[in-house]
């Protein structure tokens, strides 16, 4: 089986049941993406698949051999990472790699003008990075430490960089 992660192609001998999350953590030593729930409910395993944020715990590796996977290890001094550091956007850090990947994907969605459930009737005239928007767009990432308040400005600031 072939998996392309952070620009490097890997040849792996994997059971078809292996998820992308388990392939990363157990076979490629990339332990940034975390296993919180293993059922799509927490976002700790978020990675970018062809540039889009997804839950890697629900992806079968065998089905994504042609995709470009990007994990938190693939970012170096990214504006979102800097924002989390400067604004103290975490406590224990367990959810943080997922939050960061999710925020990177989310800012790209905002860039493309995608609406969210917080967006009103006229998305043209709306601030897609208001507090309400950021909270709604990031709702797929839970944080047991409740470090949410500082993540909001961290993400908004990263958008401007």
């Amino acid at each position, binding site marked *: 089986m072939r998996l392309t992660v952070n620009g490097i192609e890997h040849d792996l001998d994997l059971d078809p*049941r292996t998820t992308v999350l388990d392939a990363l953590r157990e076979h490629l030593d990339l332990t940034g993406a975390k296993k919180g729930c293993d059922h799509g409910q927490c*976002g700790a395993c978020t990675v970018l698949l062809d540039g889009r944020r997804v839950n890697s715990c*629900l992806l079968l590796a065998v089905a994504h051999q042609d995709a470009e996977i990007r994990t938190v290890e693939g970012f170096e001094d990214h504006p979102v990472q800097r924002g989390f550091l400067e604004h103290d956007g975490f406590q224990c850090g367990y959810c943080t790699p997922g939050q960061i990947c999710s925020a990177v994907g989310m800012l790209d969605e905002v860039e493309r003008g995608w609406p969210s*459930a917080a967006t009103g009737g006229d998305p043209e005239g709306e601030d897609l990075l208001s507090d309400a928007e950021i909270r709604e*767009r990031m709702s797929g990432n839970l944080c047991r430490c409740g470090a949410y308040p500082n993540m909001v400005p961290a993400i908004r600031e990263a958008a401007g960089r």
Partner: protein
Amino acid sequence: MKTFTYRSATGFADGLEPGAVFLAGGTNLVDLMKLGVAAPDVLVDVNRLVADEISELPGGGLRIGAGVRNSDLAADPRVRTRYPVLSQALLAGASGQLRNMATTGGNLLQRTRCRYFMDATKPCNKHAPGTGCPARDGDHRNLAILGGSDACIATHPSDMAVALVALDAVVNTSGPAGERRIPAEELHRLPGDAPERDTVLEHGELITSVDLPAVEVTNSAYRKARDRASYAFAVGSVAAALTVAGGTVGDVRLAWGAVAPKPWRARIAEERLRGAPATRESFLAAADAELAGARALRDNAYKIALMRNLTASVLERLAAAGGTR
């Protein structure tokens, strides 16, 4: 998880061997496989097979490929302007990450979130026919008040499907027996004494696309009640479209989510509303007429009041928004 073989589907109407299932985004199927509730022998990946494009239909409708991701569908400018109820329903569902994987076909065919269905160690007439239903005396707080049977009171969890039913969408399929056009309202079936069958689809029948008919009413909205503000399944939802002329209801479409084993088209309420004054009183009376058939259990009676109020508030807002085309 039971092991399986994996292959990528190559052509339509290949059919499926017994024990084989289609894989799309995998956000529901892989979850159920981990839980041991689904245990296919073969996974047939349809991601390269089904279209992931939205195209114009002659006469002003849209054709949504079964492989279109929920996030792309919700963001499509044509969907946002012509079918706001559909965009809103999609955005009310799941999370950004899940919507990026979830497909139109997979969303329609996602299975109930009833806790007994999702627990392979529990009896459940849906995952193990004939074993009984613990929900009646157990946890049924989020289960059906309409359309259930003695065998099963599970609710259909999709938000998107409720909007499609309100919009009179048509599901196009291709299978060993040929091609079919199935009204979205008739795709899901009521459980009766065979709750293991969620839909009218045959084994190996592939959803290829969903057609949205030309819009008659763009004044539409989706409203969802849930236990937390985001990233939670509905406990009740309303998809509605409305026109008002001279204070009187013209056209109205109303569908309810999370109250029945299928997306529930509220036809009794619609009937009452056509030609009625566009007032809160008639909206409530129409909801009451639909809910006359509701049967609640110990812990889900709140849904009757919820649907009554939610319906009236959505219709009031649509009426205030002009109710014009």
